[in-house]
């Protein structure tokens, strides 16, 4: 029983790391998408040629909006979320859930049925 836990812990940790990595990548990837767009289509950035532009053209610039969305997500949502994810994974509830999830209960349950069949 204990050996099952020991073997499955690194798998759970890898899973957790992957989740944390995915969360921490979402914001920077969005920012990068906005920057790439700005480089590919610089004419959509009116800040580069602001002379004679109206208020809305200066405020609403799609590549910058993507960057702002990415920054908002990374700073306001992802940061506290990563802290919570770490705390949750360290909590006894999550450890119990992991241990429960690692038990080969399904095999035990299915094998007698197969034998009966």
């Amino acid at each position: 029983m204990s050996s099952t836990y020991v073997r499955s812990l690194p798998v759970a940790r890898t899973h957790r790391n992957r989740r944390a990595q995915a969360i921490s990548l979402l914001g920077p990837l969005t920012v990068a998408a906005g920057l790439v767009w700005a480089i590919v289509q610089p004419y959509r950035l009116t800040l580069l040629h602001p002379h004679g532009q109206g208020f809305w053209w200066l405020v609403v610039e799609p590549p910058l909006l993507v960057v702002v969305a990415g920054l908002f997500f990374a700073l306001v949502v992802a940061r506290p979320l990563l802290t919570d994810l770490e705390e949750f994974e360290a909590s006894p509830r999550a450890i119990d859930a992991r241990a429960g999830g690692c038990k080969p209960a399904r095999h035990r349950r299915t094998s007698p049925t197969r034998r009966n069949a």
Partner: protein
Amino acid sequence: MQPRAEMVHWMFATGLLVLGLCLLAEAIVGPEVWRARRWRAYLWPGLAFAMGVLMWPVMTFFTNSAIHMYAHGSWAEVLMLAGGAELGLVHGRLKSRWWRLTMPLAFAVTGTAFIVHEQNTWFFQRSAFLHHLLGWTFLIAAVIPLGLVFRPRSAALQASFALVFVVVATMLYCDRDLAPVFGHLSPLAGVPHR
């Protein structure tokens, strides 16, 4: 001092992009972690509701025709309904999972309104193409929130639901008031600006 229609599309695209990122994050970490902080649980339903509210000024100030008014008005209603239902579910005021049916309803109404209120053909110009594409995307993608009503814990459905918003945001960012689409631009559309 009124923004162009394409700018309104871009602003809504930003809202939908943030919504999609939040939903994607929730799908990755799971609802237990996502709802660890109260404000975060309300974030995306609140954003959806706020976008529904903001759709009313769009209906008021961008009424090119009666059909535009009906389309924007119905979006405002269903977005507020879906966002409000999610807010109620998160808060605990609403208990029944059937309230989640408001989201596929919002998708279906949005898709239909997109298709109906675009009166030009697909390749008339870019915005016409995108309105048709967005309409069909919403109509087809309505099966995802419908599936979530019956399988709310499905990570695949949650991720797909989030990605729909990211895809829709991308389409809205591509919108221009007057621009060609794949080299097609009807002479009736007018002269494209930058």
